[in-house]
């Protein structure tokens, strides 16, 4: 009966500790009853092949154990399509960027940035980036799913709220504001550490030189990040939609807009000086990099401008803070 014992051991491994002994004892008893009945009908002990066939008919140990367990999922059927769509887009973008990067840095710009000149580095960047995004989105969607499940279980949701947030709108708004603020604090802290540790002027060993505007803005950007962290910390510790808090946000966003304006006026932002690549290729690479910088700065600028206008309308436009999008967590 070694086969039977191994099978039962395998089932045991998938079961929760507190139910293992009970379930496996009952399963063993059922299997032994069936084996005995077969043996009585055949008038001989079951051959190993016959025993294996009998166990195979019962199913894989994992499926057998699964039937005893409550159905649980990290991301439910309602969230799954959005999750898959988001992951597909994120991974698709990463793969396209990695492919484009590998074509540029292993082709025409080979040697411009030595560390990026091998095909394998792009493979690992694409794989690492994709896995990181899949993990991140799994975590985010899992938390959102958990939030909605809890809202349903506790009955703390309101049909008037299309997002199915809890009925206690104020509490929900505070929770949302706090969560956003914590995420912003972490992001800005990382940016500040990166900004202060990485020399912002030149990376000659990589064949890329940043123009002097970055040096001029080194401390103003650090000041902006520190101010932003301060306001976000206040949001995290004590969520509020008071006029004072709105004015603080306005001040920080205004500073961001000024910095972006100065940067936009100071083009170009990057020069490619790698001696190992032809001058024409270096110029082309420089143009691409500056175009990417322009696009990035414009996108960030539009984002901050929209945010600034919204904050200004809330601070001076007379709309009730409690019904504004940020206050309701939308």
């Amino acid at each position, binding site marked *: 009966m070694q086969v039977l014992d191994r099978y039962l051991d395998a089932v045991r491994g998938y079961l929760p500790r507190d139910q293992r002994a009970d*379930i496996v*004892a*009952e399963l063993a*008893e*059922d299997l032994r009853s069936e084996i005995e009945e077969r043996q009585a009908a055949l008038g001989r002990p079951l051959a190993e092949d016959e025993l294996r066939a009998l166990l195979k008919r*019962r199913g894989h140990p994992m499926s*057998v154990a699964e*039937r005893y367990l409550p159905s649980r999922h990290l991301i439910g059927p309602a969230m799954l399509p959005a999750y898959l769509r988001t992951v597909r887009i994120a991974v698709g973008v990463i793969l396209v960027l990695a492919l484009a990067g590998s074509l540029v840095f292993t082709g025409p710009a080979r040697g411009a940035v030595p560390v990026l000149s091998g095909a394998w580095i792009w493979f690992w960047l694409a794989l690492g980036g994709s896995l990181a995004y899949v993990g991140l989105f799994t975590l985010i969607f899992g938390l959102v799913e958990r939030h909605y499940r809890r809202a349903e279980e506790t009955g703390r949701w309101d049909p008037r709220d299309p997002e199915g947030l809890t009925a206690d709108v104020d509490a929900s708004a505070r929770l949302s504001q706090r969560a956003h603020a914590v995420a912003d604090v972490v992001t800005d802290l990382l940016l500040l550490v990166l900004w202060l540790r990485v020399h912002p002027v030149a990376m000659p060993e990589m064949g890329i030189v940043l123009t002097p505007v970055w040096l001029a803005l080194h401390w103003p950007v650090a000041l902006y990040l520190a101010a932003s962290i301060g306001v976000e910390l206040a949001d995290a510790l004590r969520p509020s939609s008071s006029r004072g808090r709105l004015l603080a946000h306005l001040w920080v966003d205004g500073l961001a807009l000024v910095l972006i304006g100065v940067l936009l006026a100071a083009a170009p932002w990057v020069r490619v000086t790698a001696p190992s690549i032809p001058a024409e290729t270096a110029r082309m690479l420089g143009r691409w990099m500056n175009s990417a910088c322009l696009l990035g700065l414009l996108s960030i600028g539009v984002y901050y401008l929209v945010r600034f206008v919204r904050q200004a309308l809330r601070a001076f436009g007379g709309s009730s803070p409690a019904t504004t999008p940020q206050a309701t967590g939308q």
Partner: protein
Amino acid sequence: MSPDLFENLRLELRRGCVIVAVMAALRSEQYGYTLRKALAEQGMDIDEGTLYPLLRRLETQGLLASEWREEDKRNKRFYRLSADGKQVLKQLLAEWETIDSSLRGILKENRRASARSVS
């Protein structure tokens, strides 16, 4: 029509009936293997992967009671319907009667309508 579709619908139709059948069979005490055989003999084949988790669930819900006892030199778990289980079974059987009678009425009406359209 795919065979899977029919199989899924058949299983869905059977799901509730299996619970009633198990509860009805456990008006007298039985252990899992004999219960499965008894139900199979009555034409209600339930595979063990469905039966044992169902027995545990019904016991957790207080509808069944169980005890481990030695029989034929082997430890077996015997199940029987609890007092709550008897009450719920009574209600379920009444519900079953209502569903059965409604369904028969609908089918009878359909047969009459088809006969009228043929003539």
